[in-house]
């Protein structure tokens, strides 16, 4: 019981404050840049899915590299504009920007998870995707 209380007052409390109260803008900026960067990479490498042995087969079945690249650049660019806008945009704009980046990161995480064994980048994509979903859930009308 005492250990639990120590955890709540110490590391647990710190984690709670980070997840619930700390500004999320730095994560928004990072995820928007990652998604835009991946989009640009896909757009420039039109045969990337073929070169990397079947890891991106699920994505390749749905659309080409160029199409995914345009979608990712669109979502990332939109999120970047909303994050860097000088005044706080309206709640629905901020929510939709976070939804857009979360969608892209969840697609990458889901694609990797459907491979067996999943590639190493699954851990990165999965954590980024989970943090993005958490970002959606903690979006508030007041504040950024």
């Amino acid at each position, binding site marked *: 019981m005492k250990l639990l209380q120590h955890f709540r007052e110490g590391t647990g409390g710190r984690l709670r404050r980070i997840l619930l109260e700390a500004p999320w803008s730095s994560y928004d900026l990072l995820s928007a840049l990652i998604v835009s960067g991946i989009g640009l990479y896909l757009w420039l490498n039109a045969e990337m899915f073929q070169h990397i042995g079947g890891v991106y087969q699920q994505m390749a079945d749905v659309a080409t590299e160029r199409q995914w690249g345009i979608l990712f650049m669109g979502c990332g660019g939109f999120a970047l504009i909303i994050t860097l806008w000088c005044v706080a945009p309206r709640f629905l704009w901020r929510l939709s920007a976070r939804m857009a980046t979360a*969608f892209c990161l969840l697609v990458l995480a*889901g694609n990797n998870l459907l491979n067996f064994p999943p590639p190493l980048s699954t851990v990165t994509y999965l954590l980024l995707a989970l943090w993005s979903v958490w970002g959606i859930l903690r979006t508030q009308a007041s504040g950024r």
Partner: protein
Amino acid sequence: MADNASSWSELLSAIFSNPEKGALFLVLIAGAWRWIRELWREGKEDEHHESLVETLMEENRKLREELREKREHDE
């Protein structure tokens, strides 16, 4: 009942076997849930604001009445 369960399992397997569908499903659920929560919260805040204004107006009316009675009494 069994048909219902199989249709649900078909839907779930379709979602999870296609990463883009699963991602879209999860994102829409999370976004809709957050939006509904925010609308509900706004409604609650408006309700509280209205009740506070009503209480203040009632208080003000009572004080005015008291003051009027006091003036009449003094005269």
